[in-house]
């Protein structure tokens, strides 16, 4: 429970509403931030107007995925690592199959890549809808969860559920299910959807445009907190501009636009263990913290967004470079529109080509490989080293939420003095900080991660 020690309560002398005096001393201690995936605490202490402690503590159990991958067989990596996280299991599967393929010389077929992109879009949609509608929006209605909204705003909740259902059904048709997909392997798919399934999904995607439009309409009325901080935005970018970067691309940021190959990721992502977090913090060569996720992708890849998505962005009042992290939720909505349109295009292409059962492509060697994907919460890296028998000897996973932790704390350091100055109550301040954490959509199960290993 939060506990408060507040002094210098503002008093009104003339009966007019007082402009609240700045708060000098405050302690905020939130154990287990709610409506985020995983266990995290916020601790802020201010004494005489100065911050003495400010930490987003990650208290999730360490899980040791990288350790217990050692000794497992190469083809198991995607099915093991998708279990890092229930929300982004498709994202982990995607980065993992790409890393294993890089380590084994497997080149997937064109059909496999199209299906993977469709599966990926399904997860982006489902994760963003879950986050925006179920985890973030209740704050704006003064509700503790989406449950009361089911009675007060049934249309909104039903629409959100319908969108989420569609996203899950895309994952179901392509991967077998959304949480821990079954059919997606290094080398290809063990099952392809039937054309009629894709036709039905396409029809539902077309119908969902109006639902998304309504969502955006509702969202445009919400009072997004005004906060800005210049920061680095890191994401993938498809350098020839042919596609909005989710599945492929090179490392790119607003502060270092010369692209870096994914295999060289350690030049851009520098990890550090900090005691108050079971997840490592990350910095870049350009900044002590950087942001990954929807807003980073939006800022770096705006030109590649579908025209409809650009239109929604304009209607919601964001344009690149947007430096308000609260607008990460807005960027998620914009991405929902993009994923919907892109999925329709992918389905058209798959249907035009015709779907074929293809055997899994076999490995030609066993070595070292890095794979990356820009998953709902940002850029994700998987790296594996295989021995001669195809068993994993080393593994390294770098998770988006882990990369964002230092940036969330950096935001808080700038935000807390502003909030103190505005004379907010401790409760208001606590809520605002929780909203900031939620805006990043942290996925703390994922973020329990680990050591940088120097490999020969």
């Amino acid at each position, binding site marked *: 429970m939060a506990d408060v020690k507040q002094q210098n309560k503002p008093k009104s002398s003339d009966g007019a509403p007082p402009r609240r005096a700045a708060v000098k001393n405050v302690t905020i201690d939130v154990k287990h931030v709610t*409506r985020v995936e995983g266990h995290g605490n916020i601790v802020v202490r201010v004494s005489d107007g100065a911050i003495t402690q400010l930490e987003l503590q990650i208290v999730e159990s*360490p899980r040791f995925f990288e350790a217990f991958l*050692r000794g*497992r067989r190469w083809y198991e990596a995607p099915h*093991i690592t998708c279990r890092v996280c229930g929300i982004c299991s498709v994202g982990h599967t995607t980065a993992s199959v790409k890393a294993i393929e890089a380590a084994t010389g497997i080149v997937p077929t064109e059909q496999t890549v199209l299906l993977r992109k469709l599966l990926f879009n399904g997860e982006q949609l489902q994760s963003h809808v879950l986050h925006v509608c179920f985890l973030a929006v209740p704050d704006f209605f003064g509700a503790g969860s*989406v449950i009361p909204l089911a009675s007060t705003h049934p249309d909104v909740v039903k629409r959100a559920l319908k969108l989420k259902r569609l996203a899950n059904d895309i994952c179901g048709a392509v991967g077998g299910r959304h949480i821990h997909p*079954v059919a997606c392997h290094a080398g290809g798919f063990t099952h392809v959807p039937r054309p009629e399934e894709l036709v039905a999904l396409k029809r539902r995607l077309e119908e969902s445009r109006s639902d998304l439009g309504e969502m955006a309409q509702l969202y445009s009325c919400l009072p997004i907190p005004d906060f800005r901080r210049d920061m680095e935005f890191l994401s993938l970018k498809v350098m020839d501009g042919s596609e909005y970067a989710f599945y492929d691309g090179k490392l790119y940021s607003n502060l270092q636009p010369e692209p870096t190959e994914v295999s060289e990721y350690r030049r851009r992502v520098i990890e550090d263990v900090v005691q108050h977090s079971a997840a490592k913090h990350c910095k870049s060569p350009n900044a002590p913290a950087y942001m990954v996720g929807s807003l980073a992708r939006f800022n770096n890849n705006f030109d590649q967004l579908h025209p409809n998505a650009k239109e929604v962005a304009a209607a919601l009042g964001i344009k690149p470079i947007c430096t308000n992290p609260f607008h990460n939720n807005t960027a998620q909505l914009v991405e929902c529109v993009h994923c919907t349109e892109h999925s329709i295009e992918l389905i058209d292409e798959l249907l035009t080509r015709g779907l074929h059962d293809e055997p899994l492509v076999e490995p030609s060697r066993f070595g070292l490989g890095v794979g990356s994907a820009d998953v709902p919460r940002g850029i994700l890296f998987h790296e594996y080293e295989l021995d001669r028998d195809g068993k994993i000897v080393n593994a390294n996973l770098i998770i988006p939420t882990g990369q964002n932790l230092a940036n969330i704390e950096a935001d808080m350091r700038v935000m807390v003095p502003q909030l103190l100055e505005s004379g907010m109550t401790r409760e208001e301040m606590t809520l605002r900080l929780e909203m900031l954490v939620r805006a990043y959509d942290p996925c703390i199960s994922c973020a329990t991660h680990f050591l940088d290993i120097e490999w020969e």
Partner: protein
Amino acid sequence: MKPKIGIFSLTSCEGCSLAILELENELLDILGAVEIVNFREGMTERSWDIDIGFVDGAVSTPEDEKEARLFREHCKVLVAIGACACLGGLNTLKNYQNEADYRSYVYGNRAGWFPTIPARPLSAVVKVDFELPGCPMIKEEFLEFVKLTLAGRTFRLPEYAVCVECKRKGNLCLYEKGVICLGPVTRAGCDAICPSFGSKCEGCRGIVTEEAVRAAGVNLREQYNVSLDDVMADLRLFGAYQEAKLP
């Protein structure tokens, strides 16, 4: 009186809690029939007066042990959901490595900051009333559990193997393609989802009976000439905490 529900996570990916939210078509009906009073991932309010508590995740830290006891104390009925809570799940893979080694591999010389214990299922620490296995939990099975419980009837898991469901669906047996599948030894209830999508059963719902394991072991050795080490590795993926001997 609507039954008061709590949804909790120990060491897990929280996928099983999420699976509940993936019952989109039934969610509003469920919310009408029960009262969710404690669900950190989905709501801010928290109450400790709970009729049925659902727990995902393995017991893998000293803190998990404390929490498991707290859940037991405050829930009239305690239900383990998913492979981690029912079997220990993937987390048990670390139990086969040297503790000092896996801790330092991940956290280096700062391993001491992050306490950990061998991973165990929830039932190894407190009494569990029901288990809904699978990785993730099968949401249809969860729905069935809720319906039966609301009707005052007792939920029971299937006592037969995944092969039964697989045959019923008309899938070509993966053994015919030379793939070692754990369907013959694994508890049904998933509608054979993995073999239906061309992937071998990985045993995430746990071993149905020891007899099934023995029989499968004989078959594998004598009919398919498979190295049982590989089969053990497969069985360990989710179920390393289970006792089963290959002949």
